[in-house]
Each structure stands twice: as structure tokens, then as C-alpha cells.
């Protein structure tokens, strides 16, 4: 049995071992290495409890035996191998299941509340325990996307967009549990499939099936914008139908030649949109010009941007999650392809606090948790859903973290939405707990 010279190191001071080379069997698996570290730690500190570790060889997670991994990566087995170890990311567990009457099209989380949009033409606000707090009814068609704008004391602003070609800005008084439609944003000529609020919470952007992106003000006012169209309709009828004051877009960004499927703000001045025309476009909101185009080969369903690692993740109909560098000007735009899903990737979301983690949901009913350091396979598959996953989101949860594990910094709850075929069955969406003990 061949032996390899390795040296272990870690960032976590608590689990430091002596910096000496060890000779270990070449065929060691992750579990063997983990046992070695635990033995070393036991010898060092009495009262050490067993901890599962994961191992990184030159920035990539070890998933096979050590010698196979090094062969695959082309690392020489002659020298001393530097192996970093981190505490293993625990498998996420289904925590809650919130039942809906109909398909859930979108979800957005805030520290305390969860907002979901549904195909029954309403949006709902839930507590994080899964208790329905409020039903947002007002749209005349399916709610396609929802977003929290901001929380200002006892009032929260939230946005819903719908297939009825409008987005509505709502004001929710948390204390009195009163909801009021403040503005009805009209202007799109197709279903508004995606909305995103700017980081400074003063504007939002909407992407629609009519190939347009529109930038709107997210600040509620009492002034009504004049709408030129629909003059021929009886004014009275229009008034009764309308929810809140009409608002018109600040700016319209056109350039996509197919439906816009997803929009987001990468910073206060830049909007990024993914479309069915196989492109991701970056727009300058100040000037309204298109900055650059990332071209793929298939329809993009969703994009997500992480300000931590400054990368875009896209999910497309060819079943891959791709990572892009939106700022690179050279030809190689795709940094990584994450391939494991067997259906269209309908939702991706970067972790808000960990620059290496993202989750993706797909029509194959599986939510996958990825680490960019192990791009060959996902860290975990979350397969509790029985139908297509349409949206996923992360949430920071400080309270839960404290009594789950004192040393845990964050607990993330992943909300992914279950879809069911028949209407009689309640539609659950699941809350997953992921304990990151970094």
C-alpha cells in the first residue's frame, strides 16, 4: 500500500493540529482523513468531541480517494501534499413545510417574514414558522414575482408583479396588519415575470414577456402619473379596477429580442437581465444603455449575482448552472458549469454570506446545494419536493442560530417551493435548515 506525505492545515484556530507532515495511505477516503484529524485533536485537547471534516486539496473538495483525486487533478504524489480541512457542512434538513392552495411562483424572504407569490393570483406573507399572516390580493392574474422593498419601523413595503401586466407596490402595516396598495405600475404589455429592487431601495426594475425592462421608482408618493393609453375605456371602470395610484416607468430598457425571464441589480447603477433570447445583458441605469452582453446557447431561466464573489450564476434550459464573470472582457465568460440537474434549472440563488455556496432548483424536483470548490457534483441534493421547483431563496436566521449551535454564525433557511398537480392537495413549501459551522 503506497503512502503519501501530507500536511494538514486549517483556518479555524480551534481545530489546528501540529504543522508536521504525516504519511497516510494513498487510498484514504474523506472519512479516513477525518478520523485522523479527530485522533490528533483528541490527543491534543482532552474532551474533544468528534467533528466531521471536509478536505480541500488545492482548493477543490476531496470526493474520491486521495490518490484518485490527485491523479485527476494532476498533482504530483512525490511531494508533500498540503491539505486544508474545514468542518463539514452538514446536510440540510427539511424543517418546515408551508402549504399553499396553488402553485408558488416566487418567494422572497426578509429577516422575519416570508413573502410568496402564487398562481391563485395572490401573494402571502408568512412568519418564519410558517404561519400565514396576510394575503395580498389585488392582482387579476397569476402573481409571477414578489419582492420586499424595505422595512421602515412598523411599515413594510413590498412588491408583487403579475401576469396582468402590472406590478403593485404595497404598504403593509405590521402592527395593525393592514395592507394598502400604494401604486399600480402600469406600462408593460406582457406578463411581468421578474422584479428586482435596487440595493438602495429607491428603485426597482421589472422584466416582462414583452421583451422590455422597466425601471420604476420604489418610493411611495401620493401623486398619480398620467397614463396616456386606455383613454377610450370608461374612466369610472378604470378607477374601480385599479389598485392604488397609477405609476409609470422612469425608464424603459429595450434590447432583448425575446422575453425577459429574470432581472437583478448588481449594484445601484447596474441592472442585469436574462432572457429567452439566449443572452444576459448588463444595463447602465443612469444612461439607459446596454453595457455588455453575455451570450449563451440556450434560454436563460434565472440569474443570481453574488456581491461577495462578484459572479453571476445562471440557470438555463440545458440543465446546467453556469457561473459568469460579468466584468471580464475577454472571450471566456463562463467560469464554471455545474452539471447535475436533469431538468430545466428554474432558480438559482447565491448564498448571501458564503461566497462559495449557491442553491439551484430545477424542474426535476430537486434542489441542489453547490460549492464552487467542488464543481463536479453538488454538495447536497434536497429531494423532498414532489413536483417542479420554481423558486428558491436563502434566509439568514440569527435567532435560530443561537440555540441550534452556539458556535454557528448563521443558519440558512432555504425556501423552495413545491408544486402539485391536483388542486385539492395543499401545496407545501419546505424550509430547510443548513447549519454552517464555519
Amino acid at each position, binding site marked *: 500500500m503506497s503512502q503519501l506525505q501530507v500536511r494538514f492545515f486549517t483556518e479555524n484556530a480551534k481545530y489546528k493540529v501540529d504543522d508536521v507532515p504525516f504519511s497516510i495511505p494513498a487510498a484514504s477516503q474523506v472519512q479516513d482523513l477525518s478520523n485522523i484529524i479527530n485522533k490528533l485533536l483528541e490527543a491534543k485537547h482532552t474532551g474533544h468531541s468528534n467533528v466531521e471534516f471536509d478536505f480541500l486539496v488545492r482548493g477543490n473538495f476531496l470526493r474520491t480517494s486521495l490518490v484518485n483525486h490527485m491523479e485527476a487533478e494532476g498533482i504530483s504524489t512525490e511531494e508533500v501534499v498540503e491539505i486544508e480541512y474545514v468542518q463539514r457542512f452538514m446536510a440540510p434538513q427539511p424543517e418546515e413545510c408551508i402549504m399553499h392552495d396553488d*402553485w408558488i*411562483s416566487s418567494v422572497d424572504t426578509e429577516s422575519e417574514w416570508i413573502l410568496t407569490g402564487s*398562481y391563485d393570483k395572490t401573494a402571502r406573507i408568512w412568519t418564519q414558522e410558517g404561519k400565514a399572516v396576510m394575503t395580498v390580493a389585488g392582482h387579476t392574474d*397569476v402573481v409571477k414575482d414578489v419582492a420586499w422593498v424595505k422595512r421602515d419601523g412598523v411599515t413594510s413595503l413590498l412588491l408583487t408583479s403579475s401576469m*396582468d*401586466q402590472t406590478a403593485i407596490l404595497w404598504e403593509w402595516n405590521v402592527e395593525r396588519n393592514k395592507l394598502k396598495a400604494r401604486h399600480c405600475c402600469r406600462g408593460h*404589455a*406582457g*406578463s411581468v415575470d421578474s422584479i428586482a429592487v435596487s440595493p438602495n431601495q429607491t428603485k426597482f426594475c421589472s422584466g416582462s*414577456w*414583452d421583451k422590455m425592462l422597466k425601471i420604476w421608482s420604489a418610493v411611495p408618493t401620493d401623486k398619480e402619473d398620467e397614463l396616456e*393609453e386606455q383613454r377610450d375605456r370608461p374612466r369610472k371602470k378604470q378607477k374601480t379596477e385599479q389598485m392604488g395610484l397609477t405609476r409609470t416607468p422612469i425608464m424603459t430598457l429595450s434590447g432583448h429580442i*425575446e*422575453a425577459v*425571464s429574470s432581472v437583478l441589480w448588481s449594484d445601484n447603477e447596474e441592472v442585469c437581465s436574462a432572457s*429567452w433570447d439566449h443572452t444576459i445583458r448588463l444595463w447602465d441605469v443612469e444612461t439607459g444603455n446596454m453595457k455588455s452582453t453575455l451570450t449563451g*446557447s*440556450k*434560454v436563460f*431561466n434565472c440569474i443570481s449575482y453574488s456581491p461577495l464573489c462578484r459572479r453571476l450564476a445562471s440557470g438555463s*434550459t*440545458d*440543465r446546467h448552472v453556469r457561473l459568469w464573470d460579468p466584468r471580464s472582457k475577454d472571450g471566456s465568460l463562463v467560469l464554471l458549469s455545474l452539471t447535475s440537474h436533469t*431538468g*430545466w434549472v*428554474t432558480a438559482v440563488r447565491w448564498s448571501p454570506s458564503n461566497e462559495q455556496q449557491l442553491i439551484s432548483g430545477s*424542474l426535476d424536483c430537486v434542489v441542489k446545494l453547490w460549492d464552487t470548490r467542488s464543481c463536479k457534483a453538488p454538495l447536497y441534493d434536497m429531494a423532498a419536493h414532489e413536483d*417542479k421547483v*420554481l423558486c428558491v431563496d436563502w434566509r439568514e436566521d440569527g435567532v435560530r442560530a443561537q440555540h441550534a449551535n452556539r458556535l454557528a454564525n448563521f443558519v440558512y433557511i432555504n425556501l423552495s417551493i413545491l408544486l402539485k*398537480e391536483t388542486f385539492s392537495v395543499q401545496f407545501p413549501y419546505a424550509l430547510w435548515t443548513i447549519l454552517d459551522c464555519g
Partner: protein
Amino acid sequence: MVKFLGSSRTPAAFLHGDIRNTVGNVPMEWYQDYPHIGYDLEGKKIFKPIRNKDELDEFLDKMENPDYWRTVHDKMTSTDIRLTDEQISLVHRLQSGQFGDVNFNEYEPYIDFFSGETMIHPVTNRPQDKRSFIPSLIEKEKVSKMVHAIKMGWIKPRKPKESDLQFYDLWAKEDPNAILGRHKMHVPAPKMKLPGHEESYNPPPEYLLTEEERLAWEQQDPEDRKLSFLPQKFSCLRSVPAYSRFIHERFERCLDLYLCPRQRKMRVNVDPEDLIPKLPKPRDLQPFPTIQSLIYRGHSSLVRCISLSPSGQWLASGSDDCTVRLWEVSTGRCMKTVEVGGAVRSIVWNPNPAICLVAVCFNETVVLLNPYLADKLVYNATDQLIASYVEPEEERPQPVQWQVPEIEDSDKGFRLIITHPKSVKQVTWHSKGDYLASVLSDNSNMQVLIHQVSKRRSQNPFRKNKGLVQCVSFHPIRPYFFVASQRCVRVYNLIKQELMKKLMANCKWISSMAIHPGGDNVICGSYDSRLSWFDLDLSTKPYKVLRHHKKALRGVAFHKNYPLFASGSDDGSVIVCHGMVYNDLLQNPLIVPVKVLKGHTLTHNLGVLDVAFHPTQPWVFSSGADATIRLFT
């Protein structure tokens, strides 16, 4: 002798003015009694020299003159000549029978001048005679005489000799460069097997048969035996007996040589790959649908027809469960279900993006349905358009009945109901979205009707029944109309009202038809599992017939933008083909089957009933008898 001597001396005597014999070679006795002998040039007598020698003098001379023996009397000139030593030796040599010339060597090596060798130089240097190159007149005369005689028939040609044996060159006509030339067709005689160890008189023990092997060998038929003899061991070569089978083996060998087929087998060594026409690899023809992505579930019976909205956001489907369902393409969500009064035979979305209408046909009716799935402005405008119809003053007789639906139907979205006299099996829109054609399943002269929605008028364009019409289609650009009957597709010009072309499909029963968006190519699916591609510019025969399906084809479709077409069949598969049509008229369309898509389960021996392409993406939808619609991307 005398003459010889005299002639040899003559020039000298003449020069010195000697008396010369002028009488010639006559006997000298004639001049015995004369004092002269001959005459000189002046005619004077030449007198004999005075002969003063008598017998005595002669004798004295004989006795005293030592040269007497070599002195001879020349009768011609009557002088005495003393012979020189050379002359004497010459006389001696002649007397002894030798050659006169001293220097002559009679034994010299023989030079054979007239040998067989051809000399490079002529023997003589004489120039050629003139006569050798001037035609002879005499010969000419002779020839002309013979020619005249031949002409006159006096000379008959010689009878040709009859040879009794005819020979010819057997190989005269053989091409020396032929691949199968005699010299190349040599087949060597089969080689004899070389002797092995078992033939040895002292074979290694492993070659000797054991008792059982020997018994088995004896029981075998002589033809089946591996060895024709039993290996035997002898102590020395001397003790080997005569080989009893020698004559037999020689005879067998002779038979082998004699009966060996000396004919080369003409085996064609063609790589089967070479016979397949060179087609590009499907990999290079992307994008095309490759995998099933979504299943639209909800219908409870077989889904006969599907249609995509012009924007590509919505999908309409009609089923035998008497419902029309409207689906969101991207999620597979059924947005609306509309109950209709019968099994839906055909459903078509209006191709004009400014009009939101779906034509649905069931039983005897065609319903124009507003699904309210588009821009609000568009569907409201559509409602207004239909409501703004003004009744014409004079009522025309119509083959069908146009109705505005009742309130409850109107709430379902019905906008117009066209009631036909017989059941309708297909509807199709014109690309402008105003005209609508319907096909009646009736074998009469009213099988095809064309309706104009804005004027609510219908007409029967064909007076005569030309076979059972299967399906019809409008040309995407020009005012042409395609009518597929069981065996052929007729192309009519609607403006000139005449038959333009008749495409013979070479199949038993056409089931479906699709027109290329360019308008110059048509595909037809048939119930005998063929798909025929017609190039209208090329011929009325199919340019290509594809027989990839195992069972009857039910639906064919062209993609609007991508060079793709698809066919769905009862065997449950959808076959997607790359069908590139070039603008260059000289280049024929390139047709490459790229993908077989499977997913539908067979129900009542029916598989896929309809196929449709997404208007903008390379996606294909198929509806099946298993009550599902599947999206392949």
C-alpha cells in the same frame, strides 16, 4: 610465250624507234619468202633485218657464247633477245608449276569478301544510273496494256486460295490494362500441406494417438478425420514400410489440381460506410430538441391537437375529453380549461400577433375563442373587432351558419360560432389572420370551406369533388392554397382560381401536411409511415421520402425560424429532422434526421397525435394518446 614477251617489251621498242611488227598476230611463215615483213605507217615495206647468221655461226655462237642458253629468237622482229635473270627465274617457276609472281603467297589467309555480313559502305562507288530512277516506258506500256486487258475483261483475277484452317487470336481484343486481365487473374495451384511432426517416422510421443483416440479415429468417417493416417513410430527409417496410400494421395492431389476452381470470385470490396451519402453530423446541426423537459398533464383523454400562440408564451390543446386547455409553456401550468361540446378535432391559434383568437373545431362547429391570454390591448381589440361587425344589407346565401354565441358561451370566451352542415375535421388560418379554412369530413362536393372572419362570409371554392380531402393549408406568403387528398396534394392559385400543381405523394393515405415558412417546400405525412418532402420548384414527385417511423404518421410540422421539421407517429416517437432550404435555387434542400424523441406511452395503439414547434425556440411539443403533451428542448 613470244607474245607475252613482245607485249611486255612493246612500249620500250616503240619509244626507241625499233622496228616493230606491224603484221599482227599472223603466222610468220606467210612472210618467209619475202624480204620484208609488214609495212610501216607510210606504206613502205619494212625489211627484214639482214640475217647473216648461218648454221655455223649458230654453232659457233652456241659453243662460244656463254649466254646462248638464255638467248631466244623473236620471230616477230627477227631479233635475238637475251633473257634477264628475272625472266629466267620466271620461266623456271612456270615450268615447275609455280605462280609467276615471286611475291605472291598462295597460302595467304582467306578474305571472304562476299560474306553474309552487310557492309556499311557500297562495294562500288558508282553513282546510280539514271534509268534506275526514271520509270521505264516499256514497262509503262506493258502495264497499260495489262490494265486495258483487265478493263476489257480479258484478264481475270486469280481465284483466291481457300485455306481450310481458320486461325484467330483469342486474346486480340483483350485490354492490357484491364483489372481482370489474364496476367492478373493467375490463380496459383493450391499448395500441399507441409509435413508436420505427426508425419515423422519417429514422432514426439504427444503426436501418437492413444487407444481411445485411435478407436475414435477409426469410427470417424474418412471425411471427418483430422488426420488421414495414424501416426506411427518406427525405430529407424529403414523399417518404414512402403506408404500404402501413396497412389491414392497422388490421385487426390491430381484431382485437387484439376478440379480446383481457377476462377477468381468477384467479391465487391465496398465499405458499407461509403454507400451512405455524406451527411453532416447531427452535432454540427444544433440547436434541435434533444430531451424531454416538461409534461403538460391535465387532459383525461387523448390530445388530438396542439397549437402555440404567436408569442410562444401559451399553448392551446384540444382533447377528446371535450375540453380545450390553455397552458403556460415555461412551467406547464394549465391556465384555463374551456369546456366545448364535443371532442376537439383541430385547434389553431391565429398567427397574427395583433389578434388573440383560437379556432377550435368540434362536431359540426368551428368556434373562434378568445383565450384572454395576451396583451390586454390585444385581446380587447380582438373583442372590439368582432363586435364591430355590421350586417350587410343584402343577405347572401351561405353554406354555413354564423352565430354570435349565447351569454354563457360568451363568458367561456366564445366569440363566433360557425356551424357547418357536416362534422369538421380541420381548421387552419391564413397567415394574415382574417381567412380561415375548414375541412368537412364528407365525401361530397363541399369538403373545403373558406371563411372570412371580418365579413362573416363563407364560400366553397371547389365545385367538384376530387377525392376525400385530408387537410388544407394556406401558403405563408403567396395566395396559394394546398389541398391534400388521399393520394396527392393539389396547389391552387386563389387569385387566378386555377390548379397550379398536383404533387403525387406516392403513398396510400396522406394524414398531415406542413408548408415550409419559405413556401417552396411541403412535407406530407402518411398513414403508411412515410414522410414525403416536396420541393415545389423541383418536381411534383417527392424530393425525398423518409421512412423512419415504424407506424402511421399523425402529424408533421415545420419550425418558423430554425431549419427543423418534426413528425409524430403512432409508434410513440417524434423524429426531428434538420431540413435546410437554401436560397440558392441550384442547391437542393439538405435533410438530416437528427433526433428520435420518445416519451409518449402507447394507448389504444396510438402514440403521438400532433406535433408543433415553438415559434421562437428550437423546442418541439407533441401531444399523445396518453393524454399528455410533452415539450422536448
